[in-house]
């Protein structure tokens, strides 16, 4: 029984880490820049397809295709940010929502046109397949890999935003744009970089998600709800919050399905409702 609990916790944590990598970028753009970017899932999908092309057409190993996914999603998102999104920074939330959800539809149609509607399988290197036995338990190797990647990303983000010059500029630009500009910070390019970072993380998440949940043109819609849940439960703009929320939701989801399968997928929503009821600003939200 204890053994089962350990396995359930582990699997839940791994699923949570996937949610975390997918949504942390959204937390950054939504929380730091106040921009409601529903197209976040579309950038995740883009990263996924970048990995598929890199491994299948260019023959890159899976691990090397992950940075490719990050870079492609980041570059494309900057192009969009410079030409389209920036016009909407001062627009109302409804305009932002309508514009970005429209973009998801365009992305889904484009993906279907270019890659077809079929699922895109990828082949993993040998060491990420199968299971690793530890203390008599069988842990999925890929799930261990996911958890490690998520921890590294969290560490880098926290360090980067809290302790580097760029991080300080981002925080300054968010807190008081005019004062930051007055101090000589190029707010425009800081926002562009932040946006690229957030979308790049989405792309990385999309690439990591293929093995767990697959990839097809509707990816941008499927995971949007989960991304929003993680961000709102964690609190806007809080990386630690997203991390805690994603872990909690992942574990709640898997444990819920294991112990009360009749509740099925409902558990994740129940947890969300309860948490937001008690803490409307999210677990570690500032506002």
């Amino acid at each position: 029984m204890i053994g089962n609990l350990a396995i359930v916790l582990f699997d839940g944590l791994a699923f949570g880490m996937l949610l975390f990598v997918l949504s942390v970028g959204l937390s950054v753009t939504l929380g730091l820049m106040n921009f409601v970017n529903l197209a976040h899932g579309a950038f995740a999908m883009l990263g996924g397809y970048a990995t598929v092309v890199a491994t299948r057409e260019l023959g890159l190993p899976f691990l090397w295709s992950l940075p490719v996914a990050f870079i492609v999603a980041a570059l494309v998102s900057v192009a969009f940010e410079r030409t389209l999104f920036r016009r909407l920074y001062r627009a109302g939330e409804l305009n932002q929502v309508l514009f970005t959800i429209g973009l998801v539809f365009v992305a889904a149609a484009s993906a279907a046109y270019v890659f077809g509607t079929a699922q895109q399988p990828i082949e993993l290197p040998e060491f990420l397949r199968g299971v690793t036995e530890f203390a008599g338990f069988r842990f999925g190797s890929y799930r261990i890999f996911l958890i490690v990647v998520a921890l590294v990303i969290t560490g880098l983000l926290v360090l980067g935003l809290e302790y580097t010059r760029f991080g300080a500029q981002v925080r300054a630009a968010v807190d008081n744009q005019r004062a930051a500009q007055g101090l000589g910070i190029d707010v425009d390019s800081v926002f562009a970089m932040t946006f690229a970072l957030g979308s790049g993380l989405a792309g990385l998440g999309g690439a990591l998600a293929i093995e767990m949940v697959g990839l097809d043109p509707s990816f941008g819609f499927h995971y949007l709800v989960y991304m929003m849940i993680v961000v709102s439960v964690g609190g806007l703009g809080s990386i630690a919050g997203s991390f805690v929320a994603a872990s909690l939701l992942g574990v709640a989801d898997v444990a819920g399905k294991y112990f009360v399968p009749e509740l099925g997928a409902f558990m994740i929503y129940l947890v969300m409702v309860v948490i937001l009821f008690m803490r409307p600003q999210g677990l570690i939200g500032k506002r």
Partner: protein
Amino acid sequence: MFARIAAVLALGVGLMWSAQANAQDTIKIGLIMAYSGPFADTANQMQAGIDLYMQQHGDEVAGKKIEIIKKDTGGPKADEAKRLAQELIVRDGVDILAGFTLTPEALGAAAVADQAKKFMVVMNAATSIITEKSPYIVRTSMTIPQLNTAFGKWAYEKGGVKQAYTLVADYAPGVDASTAFAKGFTDAGGTIVGADKSPMGPPDFSAFVQRIKDASPEAVFVFIPGGAQPPALGKALAERGLTPPNTQIFAQGELTFPEAIKSMGDTAKGIITTFNYTMERDDPINNAFVKAYRDANKGRSPDIYSVGGYDGMHLIYEALKKTGGSTDAAALVKASEGMSWESPRGKMVIDPETRDVIQTVYIRKVEEVDGQLQNVVIDEIPDVKDPLHGAK
């Protein structure tokens, strides 16, 4: 004043005449399918089957030109399908309704087809009840109980297991599948030791496979829709060590679609599935079909959806030949009843009583052939009917 009325009348007469002329030499087929949304791939495969048939047999039947009008439902939406069916009949003046990727679409359109007395060909949607909703409906795909009741019986009698655990996707076809398999399996003498339904959200099956492992059954029966779920479930089962030969895995064929096998790799070996069509089955008609299909679709292989569309067009063409091009629904249904032909799937017959397909149910096992994992037919159950029709 008179000049205006005369002009209007002339225009009206002209329009009527042209509409009539049109009706005489073309037959319009309205396809209602989920071309976009999560089931877009299924619809695309069906469409590719339809296109291939028309490419091979031309677009002229009984001296009339066949015209296709496509309508997209975007998913399992009954209301949308109903609206589209009305639009097709009233505005576009179609003679035949066809396609139907999903059960809700078919059910939504059935009432319209019934009232308008239009011939309706269901090329995929697989719930038994559909053909009972109108006397003008004929189906060319299969029904879930047809496959899985026979499969359940087979699993006990020839699959060598006495007890099984069922895990199905939590939607109507999944529930149908688990009921059908359980019926076939327990009627033969087996026991179902546990049954779970997994939600349709993100395919993380770890909790459910752990529950199965706790019950340590001899076999697991699963039913999940194609797409992202099969490889995820296959891998989750393997992670828990639930693999043949220690634990038999039975499933409807979606679990071992070519993309899913590719993604699962060696862990797919030994999984036993059932379907009414198997791409790898060695048969001259099938081999020619697979080759033509791949040539027309950039190497993509056909699946049951493609065959449903292909045979659906065959049925329409042959029925029209028999009626001499008349699109009267009753005449077309009469022409279809009892029709039998050699399809890429093997011999199929339209049951004159239920207007559903009587066909061979294939049992396949994933094996390595020339270094490639594929579905190898290990047994055939001939002439299987849907067990639910008339079994109230």
